[in-house]
């Protein structure tokens, strides 16, 4: 145990700091780190080095080279820098490398040195050049802050959604600030800068001078400043070798320290952890590393080589040409267990291997602290880097657990799982040195998987998913989809092979979108492959937009129709309409009836002319005819226009061999003309009346002659004319004319209607006149209508018609028609006798 705490260094009374090796680097650097631009991503991310960044010559041999390594020094990419001079490098939260050029352009590269995109920080930056730049991380993403040659700041809080913000001017600023940093407070990015003895805080509205509380006097310049990982704390290094540590809001001082070194440090970073006991700042000079906090003494390390510090959530990573180390505050749980002469319960459990284990254990149990002890062991295991140590701690926990009745096992199980994942990704070959506080406490499994996918470590990612039993949609299939997207970029493999390989691996895995993969393939210029991949896509809705993008509109149309989604069909149609000339467009439609009817519907409301063209194209004369008929009453106002439209319609109907419709249309034209004439001659409203109504109107207006003429002209059948006249005359209550009419010749509709209509107009007297003339079959009905029950009975008896008899009987009312009823009954009886 003594050897275990050998690397523990106390800082003050309460905290220990330890430094241990993560990897020995074999990246075989030729240069010193100080000759390179260095950027290392947090959370055990990759390291980017730009060699020879300051060489101005254009000679190829000395052009800058951009190298990207994993945290363990495995080379990931190397490329010759061909763009402009780079001022600063930095990694975004998505592990994309941002290279800020002197001209304000920011080039974005992937982890594997693949160029992604670029954006500019604006004209002002372009004109004044970039003096310095910082890449910073906020909850919105990664931002870029730039100090220009004119000593102005420009920043964008999120490079994913680029909004440039030019910060206000610092009054009287003539030279570059001695140091500056980005602060993030209340979700807004500020800039803190030091000019001589003064500090200024820039927000987007104003520039204000600030003074840190309790700052020692005699400061004439600030040499370095550092903000903690969470933007909560700030450290300032002055030219007097004095370090001020406080909150980033500059409202509170935590502590101060005087290191008596006046040289500007190379780097200064915070080293703390969530729920830290003792926050500290790590200051690095060429050959010296100092950890200072609220303690009279600092911890000092000697640096053998040129080193670089990477602040992390819970510590500091320090890498040099040969090693990669981690410096952090010893977590509380470990401290409790291992601290010399520790009385923590965890210690007891852990020392079970010594002879006194039993004794210790009993002691703890009596104190009732065993649960806590086990928990401490589990937690401490999480913070260990060496698997051996993790194992012993877990074993201790498991041992202690045996003496507990109801210790929920999940924390133990989860820790085992997490450590397994952590150990796997920490492996030298993978090189992601995450700590337990980083994963799973901060990063989620999804993010970790994304990072693995980004490094193209698909098998490991899948193994992790399977090990953790993640749902397929979140885990395996997502990774497979990424794999497929990578696969389609392999240009040396044929389309067939790629498509087949992808389908074999992916099959019908839920949650895999073939269209996304196809889109990627199309992005790489492999249209054929994209189409092949789309064949595997079960959802047509996903196929269509991509097919359109690839200009396979006809294929898209059939897919859209297959999907049954009319909106999709419509999208394709409009696309086609713009893409093809009219003739081709119509031809395409012709082969797709569903699309055609959809388009027709649209045209009916929006583009009537197109509709006509469509029918013309198809030689659909019937529909053309209908179209013109509709136009004749809906679109045309003037009578000539209407007649002309009808004429066109009639012609079309003839072509369609629809004689009936053609004739009818011609009649309508005649009628229209005639109505016009009637209006001119007689006044009143005739237009748009039907033939029937026209005649009726004429009769009602007393123009009987005209009416008859019209009926003859249009060959209105006799029966209909009689009905028409009958109704019209009855409406007029022109009984005289009606009688004359009834006698004009034998009624083709019989005389019952006369009776009915008179009764309807409550004219029994007139009704009776006609009742006698009603033919024998309907006589009974007629007589009943006029209320002559007795006579009706006589007729019925005469007819010997059973149905008629019962009809009459049902009309007999008790009092008045008693005799009649008897008569009928008698007749019935007689009939039955026979």
């Amino acid at each position, binding site marked *: 145990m003594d050897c275990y705490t050998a690397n523990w260094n106390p800082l003050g009374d309460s905290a220990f700091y330890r430094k241990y090796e993560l990897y020995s680097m074999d990246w075989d650097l030729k240069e010193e780190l100080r000759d390179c631009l260095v950027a290392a991503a947090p959370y055990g991310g990759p390291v980017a080095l730009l060699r020879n960044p300051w060489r101005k010559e254009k000679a190829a041999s000395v052009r800058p080279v951009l190298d990207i390594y994993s945290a363990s020094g495995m080379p990931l990419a190397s490329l010759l820098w061909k763009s402009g001079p780079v001022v600063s490098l930095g990694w975004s939260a998505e592990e994309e490398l941002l290279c800020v050029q002197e001209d304000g352009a920011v080039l974005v590269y992937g982890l594997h040195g693949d160029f992604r995109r670029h954006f500019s920080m604006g004209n002002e930056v372009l004109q004044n050049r970039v003096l310095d730049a910082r890449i910073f991380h906020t909850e919105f993403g990664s931002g870029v802050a730039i100090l220009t040659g004119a000593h102005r700041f420009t920043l964008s809080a999120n490079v994913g959604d680029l909004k440039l913000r030019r910060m206000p001017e610092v009054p009287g600023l003539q030279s570059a600030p001695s140091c500056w940093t980005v602060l993030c407070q209340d979700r807004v990015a500020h800039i803190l800068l030091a000019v001589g003895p003064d500090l200024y805080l820039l927000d987007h509205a104003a520039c204000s001078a600030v003074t840190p509380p309790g700052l020692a006097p005699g400061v004439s310049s600030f040499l370095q400043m550092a903000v903690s990982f969470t933007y909560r704390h700030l450290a300032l290094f002055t030219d007097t070798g004095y370090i001020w540590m406080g909150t980033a809001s500059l409202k509170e001082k935590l502590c101060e320290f005087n290191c008596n070194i006046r040289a500007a440090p190379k780097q200064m970073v915070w080293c703390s952890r969530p729920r830290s006991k003792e926050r500290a700042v790590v200051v690095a000079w060429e050959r010296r590393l100092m950890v200072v906090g609220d303690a009279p003494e600092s911890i000092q390390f000697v640096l053998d080589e040129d080193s670089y510090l990477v602040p992390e959530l819970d510590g500091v990573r320090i890498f040099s040409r040969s090693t990669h180390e981690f410096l952090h505050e010893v977590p509380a749980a470990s401290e409790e267990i291992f601290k010399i002469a520790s009385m923590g319960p965890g210690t007891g459990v852990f020392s079970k291997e010594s002879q006194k284990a039993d004794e210790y254990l009993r002691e703890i149990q009596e104190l009732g602290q065993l649960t806590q002890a086990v928990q401490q062991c589990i937690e401490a295991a999480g913070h260990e880097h060496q698997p051996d140590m993790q194992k012993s701690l877990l074993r201790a926990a498991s041992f202690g657990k045996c003496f507990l009745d109801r210790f929920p096992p999940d924390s133990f199980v989860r820790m085992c799982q997490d450590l397994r994942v952590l150990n796997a990704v920490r492996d030298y070959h993978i090189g992601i040195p995450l700590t337990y506080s980083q994963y799973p406490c901060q990063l989620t499994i999804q993010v970790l998987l994304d990072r693995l996918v980004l490094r193209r470590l698909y098998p490991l990612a899948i193994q992790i998913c399977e090990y953790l039993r993640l749902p397929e949609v979140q885990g395996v299939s997502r990774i497979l989809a990424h794999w497929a997207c990578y696969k389609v970029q392999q240009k040396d493999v044929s389309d067939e092979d790629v498509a087949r390989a992808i389908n074999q691996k992916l099959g019908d895995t839920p949650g895999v979108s073939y269209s996304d993969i196809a889109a990627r393939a199309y992005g790489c210029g492999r249209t054929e492959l994209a189409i092949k991949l789309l064949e595997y896509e079960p959802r047509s809705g996903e196929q269509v937009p991509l097919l359109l993008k690839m200009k396979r509109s006809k294929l898209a149309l059939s897919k859209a129709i297959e999907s049954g989604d*009319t*909106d999709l069909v419509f999208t394709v149609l409009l696309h086609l309409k713009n893409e093809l000339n009219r003739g081709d467009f119509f031809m395409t439609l012709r082969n797709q009836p569903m699309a055609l009817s959809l388009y027709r519907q649209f045209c009916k409301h929006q583009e009537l002319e197109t509709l006509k063209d469509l029918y013309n194209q198809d030689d659909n004369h019937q529909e053309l005819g*209908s179209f013109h*008929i509709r136009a004749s009453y809906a679109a045309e106002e003037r009578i000539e226009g209407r007649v002309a439209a009808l004429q066109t319609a009639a012609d079309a109907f003839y072509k369609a061999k629809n004689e009936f419709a053609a004739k009818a249309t011609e009649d309508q034209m005649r009628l229209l003309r005639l109505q016009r004439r009637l209006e001119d001659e007689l006044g009143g409203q005739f237009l*748009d009346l039907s*033939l029937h109504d026209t005649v009726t109107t004429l009769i009602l207006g007393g123009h009987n002659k005209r009416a008859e003429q019209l009926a003859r002209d249009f060959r209105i059948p006799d029966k209909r004319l009689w009905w028409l006249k009958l109704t019209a005359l009855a409406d007029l209550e022109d009984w005289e004319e009606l009688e004359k009419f009834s006698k004009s010749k034998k009624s083709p509709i019989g005389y019952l209607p006369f009776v009915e209509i008179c009764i309807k107009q409550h004219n029994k007297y007139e009704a009776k006149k006609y009742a006698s003339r009603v033919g024998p079959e309907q006589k009974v009905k007629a007589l009943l209508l006029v209320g002559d029950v007795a006579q009706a009975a006589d007729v019925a008896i005469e007819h010997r018609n059973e149905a008629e008899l019962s009809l009459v009987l049902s009309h007999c009312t008790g009092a008045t028609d008693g005799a009649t009823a008897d008569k009928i009954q008698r007749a019935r009886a007689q009939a039955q006798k026979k």
Partner: protein
Amino acid sequence: MAFPHRPDAPELPDFSMLKRLARDQLIYLLEQLPGKKDLFIEADLMSPLDRIANVSILKVRSLSLRSCPSFLFEQLCFLVRPRIKNMRYIASLVNADKVAGRTRKYKVIFSPQKFYACEMVLEEEGIYGDVSCDEWAFSLLPLDVDLLSMELPEFFRDYFLEGDQRWINTVAQALHLLSTLYGPFPNCYGIGRCAKMAYELWRKLEEEEDGETKGRRPEIGHIFLLDRDVDFVTALCSQVVYEGLVDDTFRIKCGSVDFGPEVTSSDKSLKVLLNAEDKVFHEIRNEHFSNVFGFLSQKARNLQAQYDRRRGMDIKQMKNFVSQELKGLKQEHRLLSLHIGACESIMKKKTKQDFQELIKTEHALLEGFSIRESTSYIEEHIDRQVSPIESLRLLCLLSITENGEPKRLQMRIYGPEHLLTFSNLRRAGLLTEQGPGDTLTAVESKVSKLVTDKAAGKITDAFSSLAKRSNFRAISKKLNLIPRVDGEYDLKVPRDMAYVFSGAYVPLSCRIIEQVLERRSWQGLDEVVRLLNCGDFAFTDMTKEDKASSESLRLILVVFLGGCTFSEISALRFLGREKGYRFIFLTTAVTNSARLMEAMSEVKA
């Protein structure tokens, strides 16, 4: 009478959840636009909206689209059906505002869904950037405990006449909603092209989102999808069941009816909700009209007797009576007098000789005898110019049952636009022509012998779309639609579903459903399916899982694509009573013969 369901009849699922869902979504959508706003509601959406949300809940000023807009607030919200006409109207409003230099916030909420074409129009009118669009997925309105309506009357014309398939997706989504709420349907049957498409789309939706419904116990055991064009005949007949008759006479709109002064016997019109909650209506809705009056008078006597009980009561009993029973009795009294009023009004209109003649003619057509008399009756009907819609209906009935118009009956007297109506009717298959149809069959059968089955199917499709033939007579014989009558058909104690048409005809649609449910497949109905021209479009799909309880297997969801009539609903309710099933109806809209004809006619607008 009434609803004496077999004791083992399954419980209906609770559909009021659908109302709550729709209401909550609407409120959410409206709250997206905070502050005061004018709300424009399309007239067609007013009644459905009224059924799910009190307009006062919305706490906004609502205006009907038709009314002249007078704006109060700086925010305008439109609640509309996705129609191009509406888009143009909105565009005109927005553009007028622009000209006047006013800026407002506009939001268009489409119900039940947004169509790309609508956005296109907004774009063409240059206001796409000015409005924000949203969807209110309100596609299922529970009109009654067993009746869900999509309230999309235009479905019929759009699909069956114009061949526009856009609503099918809406249907599929509605089915998907039902299956997520009430569990999967283990057995599916369907007939008709549209039914098949809707079914396939729905299946696709389920596959895309599988996992959610998996493992749920099905509440509804069967689903049956049916296209309206499989059976036009039933929809064309005059209805004689009370509910149908009320619909034919007064037009039931969205489950409620406006009874005019002649019914309420006061000078005011009254809007009455017609559903199972109306105790009186509930008992007579499925009855043949001839029984209704007798029933109502019996009921009135009972009611009187109950009122009379209060004589001879002591104070305590009286107190009880007043506090507990009186309110119920009064309510019943009110309803009773309303329905009696309605009956009288119907009697006045319908029991004239005309109506009896009409029914007689219809029955003759259905049974296929004395065609000549029927034809001349129709001719007379036309000559008398009673009502174009009625005449058209009879013509269609004649044409379908007789497979073609025996004689071209001139309709032109009703005006030129009916020439288009005729061509519409023909296209939809409501009117058929005798001559060419028969020759087509001959050609068709020859062709199908020459080529493979699949190709033949396509050709058949092509032909049938050219001229749809109706084989009503043959189908009627096969399915025994005209019951053999020996003696008087006792309408008080119905024997079969034919009672909804006075015992003269079993509704074809209902008979098909009955047959398929009995066989649990289309087996043995091949000939009928062929005669219906639905060879490719009859399908069954059964999952082998036995998770469905026996109770759920007796719940059947019947989906009518293109609308169903109250007669069909009554007939199936009767069938359910006989066999111990419960039917649930989902229809694109409740329809009747007049609505069918109106949908097909071209009117000057």
